[in-house]
């Protein structure tokens, strides 16, 4: 019962703040609304028992990515006319595209069979941290390394772009 209430609270938080992030008249308000969305998602992860994922969500999205977005907004957003982020002129194509995406995802969710098992996916690990650490460095080592190489490439590329013309 408590879990249900918590789930609905977080679900409402996520949906509400995500909606506000999309329609907020001021870009700073949209950014902070998005931060609340990320928090809500972390809460849902925590309810589902994946504490590591929840903490990582806060660490990476709220503490990292959103800070950079807010930082960018702080440095650029000084012109009152440009506060407007929502251009209501193109709402029809947006509605159609959004509706199609929603239909596709809803259809996929509906048609998938979700097996519910009472056994934990952790194996003999005592905590989620240990379980995730083990599987990342054994079964999923190659995807893990690929992800790190991708991030490294992005980092080098970003540095290259930021430096501009190389003499």
């Amino acid at each position, binding site marked *: 019962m408590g879990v249900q209430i918590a789930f609905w609270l977080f679900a409402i938080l996520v949906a509400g703040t995500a909606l506000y992030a999309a329609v907020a008249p001021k870009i*700073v308000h949209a950014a*902070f609304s998005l*931060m609340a969305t990320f928090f809500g998602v972390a809460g849902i992860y925590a309810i589902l028992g994946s*504490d*590591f994922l929840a*903490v*990582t969500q*806060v*660490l990476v999205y*709220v*503490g*990292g990515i959103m*800070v*950079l977005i*807010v*930082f960018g907004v*702080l*440095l650029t957003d000084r012109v009152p006319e440009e506060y407007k982020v929502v251009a209501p002129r193109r709402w029809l194509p947006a509605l159609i595209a959004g509706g199609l995406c929603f239909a596709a995802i809803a259809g996929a969710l509906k048609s998938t069979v979700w097996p519910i098992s009472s056994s934990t996916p952790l194996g003999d690990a005592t*905590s*989620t*941290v240990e379980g995730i650490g083990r599987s990342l460095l054994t079964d999923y080592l190659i995807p893990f390394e690929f992800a790190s190489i991708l991030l490294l490439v992005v980092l080098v590329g970003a540095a290259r772009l930021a430096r501009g013309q190389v003499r």
Partner: protein
Amino acid sequence: MDGVMNWLTQDRVGSALVKVLLVGNVAPMLVAFLVWLERRVAAWAQDRMGPNRVGPFGLLQSFADLIKFLLKEDVLPGHVNKAMYLVAPCLAVIPPLVVLALVPFADRFAIADVDTGILAAFAFSGIGVYAIALGGWASNSKYALIGAVRASAQLISYEICLGLAALGVFIVAGTLRLEDVVKMQADGFTIHGETLHGISKFFDWNIVKQPIGAIIFLIAAFAETNRTPFDLPEAESELAAGYHTEFSSMKFALFFLGEYVAIVAMSSLFTTLYLGGWTLFGVENAFEGTTAQTLLQILIFLAKTMCVIFTFIWVRWTVPRFRYDQLMDLGWKRLMPATLAWLAATACVVAFLK
């Protein structure tokens, strides 16, 4: 009395609430003492008297200041973004208090004993940036905005060093749980078949195993809490008071409180990670299984934390501040490579010893 402590150390909603009340009230009280201590140490360092009029040794000075803050007119400037302007001071206090909730003050005496301990602590201390960014932006004034940008850039830069330095501890400990990290520092490790006992258990503390990591962690902690030599966000000659220029009375007091709670939180994290937390060479088990044991452990923890806090104050009144480019150079070009090298060395040693 023993029953009370037993109940408190159990994992229940009620005991958690009581502990929240305890920590949530003791931490701000500690801050009042801290502000007094800071001013007295500053006076001692500069060879003057410091506050000594209100109460014995001026101990009640902070409460007089608090009353002053409460009685001042609460100005709401016309040019600010109201909602954000009011939220920012609250955001400054909440994250460091949440970090305190994760710290084990004694055996089984953390408010939230989570597997991801330190990760959660860093996640929440990282949110402190928002108070600064938001406060500076909502103030809608030049100095506040520039101050906010400068302060957030500093926090983001040193957060990386802070996290990387602490990572060394977890490579050694093999766990993220703060309680296990403390226990690991107290079991006395074995050299040539002989287990360390008594005072020699000092060599089991992480500050001995991770000296460079500890120093870097401390430096990054100074920068994270905006302390001299890194108190760039507040520069009277360039930025007025920085991001909180436009805040007055209790709203300013909240920023101030947040800053000091952050010092308490960082110091208790340092104590937990490097100084053996609530343990003291076996003394902590003197009253096995009684209330006195928990109280003694809390006392040991507080004493160690106070030593770290004193180091914070001591450094503030000893070292002159950096220039901003020196700050960034130190963070990115010196500390970060040094931390990475230290991490690699630690990992090699741990792998070799296994």
